[in-house]
Structure formats: structure tokens, C-alpha cells
């Protein structure tokens, strides 16, 4: 009785080690499927960033490419030349220090203002009836789909000394001389809030619309005032949306170039603008690379937070 059961098992056992060994050599379909996008991302995202770190230790040079080699071999001797002066300069120069502070400050104020305008918008859109909701979200998205540069440009016409806002305020007699707005930090704030607002409203809306409204009814039935319902239920439940939205605004805002360039004055210090000028105007690629590295260091904590948050959402989706 035992033979018919035993024999196939034995037959399967003998060739198995060799097959397993071979299988390990030949990449499985699964590995190949993963390797495709993985290689792409390594080549076009990870490696380029390592190159930035590398070039930030090079020296500027006239030529193509305009930087020196870190490692040279001369008559069998390997020379390694690391130029640390860019970093020394970044750390000691007071103008650079002011730039870091001002970039972080502009981004933080922008985020806060976006939250103050965007939270009520997202909240009330989520509480509208279903047909209005889609229309309103479409209206929030529409500016985002039109040209970014042109939307920033629109504010020049509004904020200039003889622009729409000053003309309007003077015509109603509120002011007699135009307020200086264009090419100031106020203009930068307005432009930043305007451009980044949809990025905050979208994730926030997604969280608020999913909320179980019965919880609010229960609280209200139990005698909580509307403000109390909001602070004890709605706000904590939308916490993740708030964090996601704020990070989506804050991180890119730190490195913003276009808005301070078009709306800001000469004294609007933003790190993205400084990097751009080092690269395009001074053609100092190593210095620009060093500034880019400094920017990444500045953004390390918020970026890690964003990654943590996205990973958490991924895990929740998995369950």
C-alpha cells in the first residue's frame, strides 16, 4: 500500500536541489517585474542625486563640463581632490544663513495661510450636497490645470503700483497714494498661497468627505455645541489630511524659484532662487550643487515625515 504513495515523493525529492539552485540563478518573473521600475528610478532619481553630492566637492573650471574631476590618475598615482570650500562658505556666510531662515519662514507662513483659507474651503465643499461637491472641486482644480507661470503673472497686473488693486482702492477713496506691493515679500506670499492652495485643499477634502457624519450627529445629539463638535471630532479625524496637505505645500515652497523671481524684490531671499542664480548666472555648477545639498538637508525632516505618512497610508490600504 505504501509504494504508490512513496514513489512520487521520492521522485520529486531527488532532482529538487539542482532545480532550486538553477531557479535561483535565473531571475523569477516577480524579480523581473520589480526590477523594471526599480532600475528606472535608481538611474534617473537616485544616481543623479549622488552626482549632485559628488559635484558639490568639485571645483569650478572653464570648460565642458565646467567642473573639475574629483579623482585623477597621473603617472600611476591616484589624486583625490575634494573641494570643501563651498560647504565652508555655505555654513559661514551670513547672507546664506539669512536665505535659509527666510526660505523656511516664507514656506511656513505660506503653509499657515493656505491652511487658514483652505481648511474652511475643503470643509464646506465636503459638506455640500453631492452634485455641488464635484462641481466645486472641479473649480478648485481648474486653476491648477492652467499655466502656472501665467497665473503668477496675473498677479503682477493686480499688485503693481498702477495695477488693479491700487486703482480700485484709490477709486473708492480708501488710500490716496498706491501701496507698494509688487516686488515685495507680501506679493511673494500672495503668489505662493495662490499657487499652492489646491495642493492643500485636495488631500484635505479627500479626508473630510470620507468622514462618517453620524459621529457628528451623535455628538450634537448629546448636546455638544457646533464648535465643540468641530474641535473634538472633525479636526482630529482630519489630522492626516492636514499633515499631508501642509507637507505638500511646505516642502516644494522652500525651494520655490518662479514666484519670488516674478513677484519678489531684490531682497526676497529664497534658496531656490540663490541656487538658480549660482547655476545660470554665475555658471558655478559645484556651488549650485552644494546649495542643492544644503536644501535637501534643510528638507530632510519634512521629507522623512512625508515618506512616513505615505507609507502609513500604503499599509492602511493593504489591510
Amino acid at each position, binding site marked *: 500500500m505504501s509504494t504508490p504513495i512513496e514513489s512520487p515523493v521520492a521522485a520529486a525529492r531527488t532532482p529538487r536541489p539542482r532545480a532550486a539552485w538553477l531557479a535561483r540563478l535565473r531571475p523569477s518573473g516577480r524579480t523581473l*517585474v520589480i526590477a523594471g521600475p526599480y532600475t528606472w528610478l535608481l538611474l534617473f532619481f537616485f544616481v543623479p*542625486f549622488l552626482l549632485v553630492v559628488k559635484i558639490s566637492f568639485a571645483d569650478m573650471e572653464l570648460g565642458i563640463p565646467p567642473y573639475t574631476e574629483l579623482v585623477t590618475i597621473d603617472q600611476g598615482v591616484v589624486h583625490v581632490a575634494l573641494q570643501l570650500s563651498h560647504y565652508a562658505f555655505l555654513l559661514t556666510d551670513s547672507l546664506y544663513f539669512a536665505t535659509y531662515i527666510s526660505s523656511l519662514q516664507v514656506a511656513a507662513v505660506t503653509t499657515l495661510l493656505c491652511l487658514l483659507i483652505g481648511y474652511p474651503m475643503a470643509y464646506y465643499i465636503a459638506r455640500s450636497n453631492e452634485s455641488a461637491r464635484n462641481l466645486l472641486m472641479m473649480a478648485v482644480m481648474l486653476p491648477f490645470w492652467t499655466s*502656472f507661470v501665467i497665473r503668477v503673472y496675473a498677479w*503682477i497686473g493686480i499688485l*503693481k503700483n498702477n495695477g488693479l488693486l491700487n486703482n480700485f482702492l484709490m477709486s473708492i477713496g480708501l488710500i490716496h497714494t498706491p501701496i507698494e506691493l509688487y516686488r515685495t515679500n507680501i506679493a511673494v506670499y500672495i503668489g505662493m498661497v495662490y499657487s499652492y492652495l489646491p495642493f492643500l485643499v485636495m488631500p484635505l477634502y479627500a479626508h473630510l468627505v470620507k468622514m462618517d457624519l453620524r459621529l457628528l450627529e451623535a455628538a450634537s445629539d448629546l448636546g455638544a455645541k457646533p464648535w465643540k463638535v468641530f474641535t473634538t471630532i472633525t479636526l482630529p479625524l482630519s489630522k492626516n489630511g492636514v499633515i499631508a496637505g501642509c507637507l505638500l505645500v511646505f516642502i516644494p515652497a522652500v525651494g520655490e524659484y518662479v514666484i519670488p523671481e*516674478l513677484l519678489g524684490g531684490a531682497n526676497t531671499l529664497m534658496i531656490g532662487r540663490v541656487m538658480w542664480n549660482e547655476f545660470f548666472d554665475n555658471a558655478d555648477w559645484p556651488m549650485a*550643487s552644494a546649495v542643492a545639498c544644503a536644501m535637501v538637508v534643510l528638507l530632510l525632516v519634512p521629507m522623512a515625515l512625508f515618506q512616513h505618512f505615505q507609507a502609513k497610508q500604503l499599509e492602511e490600504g493593504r489591510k
Partner: protein
Amino acid sequence: MIRPNRTLQGLSLGLGFAFLYIPILSLIVYSFNDSQLVTVWTHFSTRWYAALLQDDELIAAAWLSLRVALLTAFASVIIGTWAGFVLARLGRFKGFTLYTAMINAPLVIPEVIQGISLLLLFVELEKFFGWPAGRGVFTIWIGHVMLCISYVAIIVQSRVRELNPSLEEAALDLGATPLKVFFTVTLPLISQALMAGWLLSFTLSIDDLVLSAFLSGPGSTTLPLVVFSRVRLGLNPEMNALATLFIAIVTIGVIAVNQVMLASQRRRLAVAT
């Protein structure tokens, strides 16, 4: 059901949307202004639209942007869908954290950083392999694809997660190869996410300024680069006309896409009931 406070609702939505739309309306209104001075209204005219049609530099740049955007949209959907599917269906693998970080980071990282890093990659590649020779449409295209695949991957992975896995399992049980299941079962089911990803990539690409500035070479100036170099010098009524055209096209496009999506949603509901 608790009703939101009507006054507060009207106030916050009214102010919010006024903030979002007053600049756009001002662009449109002043594009029909005859005066060279953008902020002084003289009388109605369409001269800036005529000027737009004569502007060869702008038209050439627009064609280039359109070409790059189409190439980008197709490539990003292919690579992004692949990346998003790996994220959603292949579980945890070695290097998973690095993988998710490389997908998430481009969503937020300042574009100037991505611009300089890709430029350095192309410069070093050219130094060692002689390829790509100089910068142009190809380098801009790769840059834009890098910008867009993260968005596509995120859209696709969230859609794939919503799918009922038993549909794919049934096909596998009936003897289809995994690749065949992906193309005949999974892809048709996520077609709407693919369309959303395609449209998003197209707009991100046609609108991108910073990456293009780093990755373009002589003779490959995209539309945003031309627009930026002009508005940097101050107000320019021709740009108002261009903006109005942009807004008109986008509005029509968004409404059309919305109609298509609503229609297909209704059809699905009709099939389900």
C-alpha cells in the same frame, strides 16, 4: 443630519473662490483691451490675438511643448502604471522602503533639485558614453517623465488596491499566464485611472518650467520658457491673450473629461443594477 452654517459656508467659499478666480478673470478681461498698457482700459479689441498668430517664436515653442507633452504622457503612463502595480500587488520585497521613497520624493522635492541632478546625470553620461549628445527634446522628455511617473504610480496603486482580487485569481485559475491576466483583466479595469494619469502627465509636462530650463538646449525652448522670459520683463498684453486661450482650452477639456467620466460611471451603475 446636521446642516453646516449657511452664512459661514457662503462666506468662506465665496472668498476662497474669489481669491482663486479674480486673477484669472482679470487676465481674460484685459486680453481684450486695446491699450499697450495692460492695466489701463481703452476699448475692446482682439489685436493681441492677431499678434499671437504672427508670433513665430511662440508658435514654434507651443508645438515643441505639445510634442514633449504627448511623448511624456504616454511614457509616464506606461512606466508609472508598472511602478504603481509593483507597489500595490507585489507585497514587500527587498529594498521596498527605498522604492517607496523614490516614488514619493518626486511629489514634493523642489524642482530645482531634480533639475540640477538630472542635468548632471546627462552631462556625465555624455562625458563617458558620448550619449546623449547635448541637451534637447530627449533630455526634457526624460525629465518630465521623472516628474510624472510618481503621480501616475500613486493614482494606479490606489485604484489597483480597490479591485477585487478574485477577478484576477479566477483568470489565473482558468489557466491564463500572469502577463495575460495583467493585460486582459487588470488593465481594462483600471482604464479610468490610466486616463486620469495620462491627463495629469500631459498638463504637468506642458506646464513645466524649472526642469525644462535645466534640461533644454539651444533650439529646444518650450512654451513656458518663452512665456517666462517675456513676463520677467513685466506686463505684456500678448501673454494675456495666450492665457485666455489656455484657460478656454482647459475649461472645455475639463468639462468634456468630466462628462465622459460621469457617463461611464452611470453606465457601470446601470450594469450593476
